[in-house]
């Protein structure tokens, strides 16, 4: 079964009359506002550049993603703006598109290949979490018990964030990780995971979550347990509710990513490819910014 999400207006009244080349936007999941912004920004920019754009929702399902690629190849799209479901599992899809003469431009999430994609624009998650880790250490005064809630285990961003964080925090022996579990970047799962962890560990001082959706889920669990004043919550993404949470003292810090920039730039690179350019860097990291109570005013209320 193929689930096709048509970008509002993308295939109807906004289609330019003279140029009908199509660009596909394949997103890992539209069940997360952050990825909706990524997908819609990419489609918007593609339309501005004169293309027809359609968004495909993979629903975090690699089989569904493969079906989308089958359809995209069959339907003669000129390029794919791609947010993969799995760093390894998605490589073959990208290679199939390449073999069919369709370039793929990865956005935010990485695939483990040097040559399958035309290029990959990726948030510099590792560096962001090094900064977050340093702030974590300072905020915790170098000691305390903490929990780590990981994202999707098949996504490189999950491990780049975790690795950046641990490259700092593991240097401080009095900071002890008492639990580490995955919640698949999902808010509800993170709430459940945090509730279970708190039942097994009464003494928790902080939670580091691999994205803001999970940070908000963890906050809900912590608040329900009456521990919101004791447990510090750290996230990643710069989602609106997390930024608001920092301004209100609910969340301690997050790392701001720039999905609109990544999406727009990817669409522009696809346009350049279609017009003949080929010499792209394999990967381009996009800088991220640590957001805390000290600088949240720059990002709140609206980015």
């Amino acid at each position, binding site marked *: 079964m193929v689930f096709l999400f048509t970008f509002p207006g993308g295939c109807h009244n906004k289609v330019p009359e003279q140029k009908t080349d199509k660009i596909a936007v394949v997103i890992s999941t539209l069940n997360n506002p952050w990825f909706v912004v990524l997908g819609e920004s990419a489609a918007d920019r593609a339309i501005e550049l004169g293309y027809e754009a359609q968004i495909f929702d993979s629903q975090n399902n690699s089989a569904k993603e*493969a079906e989308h690629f089958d359809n995209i190849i069959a339907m003669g799209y000129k390029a794919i703006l791609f947010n993969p479901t799995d*760093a390894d599992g998605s*490589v*073959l899809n990208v*290679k199939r598109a390449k073999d069919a003469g369709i370039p793929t431009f990865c956005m935010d999430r*990485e695939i*483990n*290949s*040097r040559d399958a994609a035309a290029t990959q*624009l*990726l948030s*510099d*998650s*590792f*560096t962001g979490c*090094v*900064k977050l*880790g*340093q702030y974590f250490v300072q905020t915790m005064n170098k000691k305390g018990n903490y929990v780590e809630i990981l994202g999707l285990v098949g996504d*490189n961003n999950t*491990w*780049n964030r975790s*690795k*950046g964080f641990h*490259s*700092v925090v593991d240097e401080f022996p009095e900071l002890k990780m008492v639990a580490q579990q995955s919640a698949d970047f999902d808010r509800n799962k993170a709430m459940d995971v945090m509730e279970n962890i708190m039942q097994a560990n009464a003494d928790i001082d902080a939670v580091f979550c691999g994205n803001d959706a999970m940070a908000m889920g963890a906050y809900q669990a912590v608040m329900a347990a009456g521990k919101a004043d004791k447990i510090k919550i750290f996230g990643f993404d710069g989602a609106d509710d997390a930024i608001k949470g920092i301004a209100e003292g609910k969340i301690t810090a997050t790392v701001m990513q720039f999905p609109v*920039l990544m999406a727009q*730039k990817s669409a522009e690179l696809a346009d350049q490819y279609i017009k003949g350019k080929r010499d792209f*860097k*394999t*990967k*381009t*990291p*996009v*800088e991220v910014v640590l957001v805390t109570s000290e600088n949240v005013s720059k990002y709140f209320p609206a980015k």
Partner: protein
Amino acid sequence: MNKIFKYSIIIVATILVIFLSLDIQKLDRVRTLNDVTEVNADTFALNFWERELPGSISAAPDVNRLLRLLKTNPSKAFDEYSKQLGISHTYYFMLKGSGKILSVEDEYIVLETDEKMKVQIATAFIFGNTVRDASGKVDIDDFLNMTSFNNVSIAINKLVKARVVEGLKTLARPGIFLQFAGAIEMTDGDMNPDAVTIIPVSINLIDGNTK
């Protein structure tokens, strides 16, 4: 007869479902997909440290010149001496110089350069990509993924701690003169050249006691 027909349909349908569920590919294609040589981060970092970094140190600007330029004409400083990674407002620099230790703190030492500028040399919080990216010698395109690329930074930072910082912490005393080389980062729009913290990659005591 009806039963035989019904079972035949079920069997054919089952075979079809199983067949359509399979993704058959040539073995050599799958092997190619998985045949990726991972970079050994420690080996790469050691090679970088011994063969690539000396060239970056040699080409690095004098600390006094660089800091003066960052204050008076940052655009020129960025153009002439910085390296950048991807889409970013952060600029990385190698630099070198000499000076006198004014004080030894928990996480850094304070140094006064020979032109009376104050800088800090980090002796803790040696993290991130500052040395890797300031050197300009490590190309992201040589790595399979960001994880491998970032593992190199972790390995380089280990060398900084083991080969430079440990010795520096042991020998640093107020009043000692030293020569240094290192890396810094500056964020455009949020930089303070008067409060620079250098990640050291080379320290030589002026009296010839090299570390």
